[in-house]
């Protein structure tokens, strides 16, 4: 058992180091859209200061270039339908994390 845990740690260590280095450069955010509640009014797309929210083929928002987000939360507080969540980006815990 003890051997297994040590090997796991060894494999994980470089990945966490990389993310911690990135985090120091700039704080990053994640924006998620709940498309079931979205009515495609376009407020988030029009007022995004970084212009990274674009319409997909249904007119609903999607993000192109998530790393550019400055976390102003304008989209979150101006969404009339409570369909946007802005959160601080957390380091990935598994390799296949979305």
């Amino acid at each position, binding site marked *: 058992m003890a051997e297994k845990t040590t090997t796991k740690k060894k494999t994980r260590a470089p990945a966490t180091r990389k993310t911690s280095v990135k985090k120091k450069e700039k704080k990053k955010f994640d924006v998620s859209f709940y498309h*079931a509640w979205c009515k495609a009014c*376009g*407020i988030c797309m*029009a007022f995004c200061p970084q212009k990274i929210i674009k319409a997909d083929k249904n007119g609903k928002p999607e993000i192109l270039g998530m790393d550019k987000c400055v976390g102003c939360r304008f989209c979150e507080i*101006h*969404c*009339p339908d*409570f369909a946007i969540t802005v959160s601080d980006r957390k380091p990935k815990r598994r390799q296949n994390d979305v």
Partner: protein
Amino acid sequence: MPIPAQALRHKYLRHNKKFPHVWCPGCGNGIVMGALLRAIYRLDIDQDDIVLASGIGCSGRMPTYLDFNTLHTTHGRALTFATGVKLARPELNVVAIMGDGDATAIGGNHFIHAARRNLNLTAIIINNSIYGMTGGQYSPTTPFGSKSTTSVYGHIEHAFSIAELAVTAGASFVARATVYHADLVDRLIEQAIKKRGFAVVEVISNCHVQYGRRNKLGGAVDMLKSFKEQAVTVSRAEKMKPEELEGKTTIGVLADRDLPISTEEYKKVRSQARATKERV
């Protein structure tokens, strides 16, 4: 510290209601609802200690979605019911949510007298310059010359300024903001709920479906942009000339004063009356 949006949704929205809500895409009512929830979250008031009363209209749908003690009342009577609740249970925080027609036309008399009486209530008035739900008839806040279904050639009457009316009628706290300044809206609502006395927050909102479309003001995005351009803060407006202020809306706190509150005065009268009765 930003407020987690997920927590607001899980805590304050009614889970047995069908979402998304009934309002049109981009409607300001949703933005005001979010601001109200953030204000309540910041104040950290228990859900059972808040009463929301609303009248009829698009804005009247708001309390049905929110998990507080809620009242959906008859047209224009949100403040009347709120007054009743406040008199019966003075320890509760009572918030009346009204539209512009609801507050100034059908409930106009209730509104000015609630302000004069100075009960410890909060009134949030969402002003979208038109009767949206009934089909776009002109309301008391429809600007001169603008079009609606009942003023096809342009409106011939002048508009009410709700906030200034409330100041004159004697409300303790009067503030105005637009839905573009959503952050300001929730700070003003927070102050208004905290304030002891009648507090009015007028929120200029967009009705791009009924009002914007007929007056060629564009969609929700264009109307929000125009709010951004029209808005002038109170401190800046003081330095500007009256000619410059034409077509602008002043935002911020317009009046904040301490006046005797009706419920407390009533308590004093009761104790006085009891004392005299005992003597007799």
